[in-house]
């Protein structure tokens, strides 16, 4: 268990004439809590795996420091950092049995045989692979290999776990099961964990805090709930949540509460009400999540904060129905109740839940809202 601190960490692969703009990871700052589960998420090439590999020591850092429990490990070899890593490919040693795979690190540490056996069997029991210990990795299913890879990490009893997209090679159902199991395992062991994924659902369901990255830069570090409610910029807003948030471009009105153009006029309410005070006349982008739009019956008198358009696509998912509506030049996705029958080509009105709206500066793409202080 440990506190991991990354201070101004930079990675630059240093090709000819490279400068800060080419940084694969740029001034990465993060201090974990003891035993925290941190998820690094972002599209491929965003630097999340590089960051993890720098924490592991598999990649040299070009600047900044990394410390584990106050010890600067920036120049320490991976084997002396007291970390364990689960690889995307699992990286099980094909010529060793499951037992030997898990025992390998302990044998290198020259632990007594009795302790090695005890630790491996303990881990195998936790992961439900005790009956597989004599098999070779190639005789295992994908899910079993995944468990062995986890087992190899936990027998080490390291200070930090690193997991690099460990579930991406599993099929969808298994992935959901393993997700829960890794979370359970983390609760039990309470070891500080870094978890890399490109899947925002995985990030949201597993992370205590999530680091959203793009092009080597941290976009936002927050809890899942706050990422959802108070995204720092358009990228985070669009990246978190499925289906993606809808974005409509307009201008902040003179009343400093609304954003409008000829196709819509949306007024912020609730905690968001006063946020636009200083931005009258600013070009802005309004964000609305599909789940914050609802069907409005044609005869309903409500006329404010309504988007009117034509239904283009209807996708019934069973529990809910996803529809795409053409509102002026915008294609808006909305999630409506499944008992409602809407048909393609028909006009439709959608009501916005105005206390959930997001507003971003059109140029900087940063949020114009003030998130309340984290509790």
């Amino acid at each position, binding site marked *: 268990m440990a506190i991991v601190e990354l201070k101004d960490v930079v990675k630059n692969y240093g090709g000819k004439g490279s400068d800060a703009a080419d940084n694969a990871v740029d001034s990465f700052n993060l201090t974990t809590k003891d035993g925290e589960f941190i998820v690094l998420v972002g599209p491929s090439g965003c630097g999340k795996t590089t960051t993890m590999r720098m924490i592991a020591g598999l990649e040299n850092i070009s600047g900044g420091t990394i410390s584990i429990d106050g010890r600067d490990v920036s120049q320490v070899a991976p*084997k002396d950092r007291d970390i364990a890593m689960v690889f995307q490919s699992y990286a099980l040693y094909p010529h060793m049995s499951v037992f030997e795979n898990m025992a390998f690190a302990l044998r290198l540490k020259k632990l007594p045989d009795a302790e090695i056996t005890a630790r491996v069997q303990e881990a195998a029991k936790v992961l439900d692979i005790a009956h597989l210990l004599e098999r070779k990795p190639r005789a295992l299913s994908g899910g079993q290999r995944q468990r062995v890879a986890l087992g190899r990490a936990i027998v080490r009893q390291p200070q930090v776990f690193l997991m690099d997209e460990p579930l991406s090679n599993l099929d969808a159902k298994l992935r959901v099961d393993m997700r829960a199991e890794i979370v359970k395992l983390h609760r039990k062991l309470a070891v500080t964990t870094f978890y890399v994924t490109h899947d925002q659902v995985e990030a949201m369901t597993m992370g205590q805090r999530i680091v959203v990255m793009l092009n080597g830069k941290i976009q936002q570090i927050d809890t899942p709930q706050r990422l959802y409610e108070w995204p720092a910029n358009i990228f985070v807003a669009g990246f978190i949540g499925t289906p993606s948030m809808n974005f409509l471009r307009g201008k902040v009105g003179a009343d400093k509460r609304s954003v409008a153009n000829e196709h819509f006029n949306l007024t912020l309410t609730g905690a968001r009400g006063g946020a636009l005070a200083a931005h009258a006349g600013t070009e802005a982008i309004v964000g609305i999540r599909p789940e914050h739009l609802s069907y409005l019956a044609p005869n309903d008198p409500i006329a404010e904060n309504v988007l009117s358009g034509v239904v283009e696509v209807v996708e019934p998912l069973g529990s809910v129905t996803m529809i795409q509506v053409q509102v002026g030049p915008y294609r808006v996705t909305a999630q409506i109740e499944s008992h409602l029958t809407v048909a393609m080509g028909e006009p439709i009105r959608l009501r916005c839940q105005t206390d959930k709206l997001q507003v971003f500066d059109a140029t900087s793409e940063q949020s114009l809202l003030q998130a309340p202080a984290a509790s």
Partner: protein
Amino acid sequence: MKDRTIGGILLTALAYFVALVMFFPILWMLLTAFKTEQNAFTIDPHFLFVPTLDSFRVALEQGSGYLHYALNSVVSAVVSTLVGLLLAIPAAYAMAFFPTKRTDFTLVWMVSTKFIPAVGVLIPIYLVYKQLGLLDNLAGLTLLFTAMNMPLLVWMVYSYFKDIPKDLVEAADIDGATTLQTMRKVILPLALPGIASAGLLALILAWNESFWSLTMTDHTAATLAVYIASFKSAEGLFWAKMSAASVLTVAPIIVLGWFAQRQMVRGLTFGAVK
């Protein structure tokens, strides 16, 4: 999908015939080795005869020196292969798993030394060896074989290492293994079949080598190639003995070579043909 048409049968027959023609000189050598000297040296060749092991006995007897040369061949081929692997494996390991900007250059440079003709370096090596007393010296010859096979070994071992995911090296690294431990406990066991076939090919090439043996050795360090070459002025006197000695020299290599066919293509063409 077997072809049972007339044309197909003819083509099959042709394939057998060609194979036999290609193999015939070897077969003829084999037959001659089992003849007496009188039977071997006749105007009308004897195809049917009573086989005898006399020629083998003569070839192997004390005075022939066959065993002396054979021992030199075995030592130089085996030791040069082992030394070559000892140098090639770490180099290939570094290049395959820890490539730098210079790796491609180094690898191509290594491969390209294979294409320097031996005559291009013969004279200085001869003169320096003479100075150092390495002429007709088994160690000197063995090192030349090592140099001759090194590009091949580096390349082949490199290509087998490339087939092993780098993740395994990193996993071992994080598990606390030193470079030597990673090599010994993780990588070598996985690449062993490949390394063995690379070694086998190097062994065959060193065994069959004649240019360096003929120019750099005389008797003390002379290999079977030199011994067999000494029959060149025999003019029919010792055909059976020559054949017997040749069979003993060639047979083990042909057998090993049959096992190494597939790897040989990969190795000798430096991966251009797989």
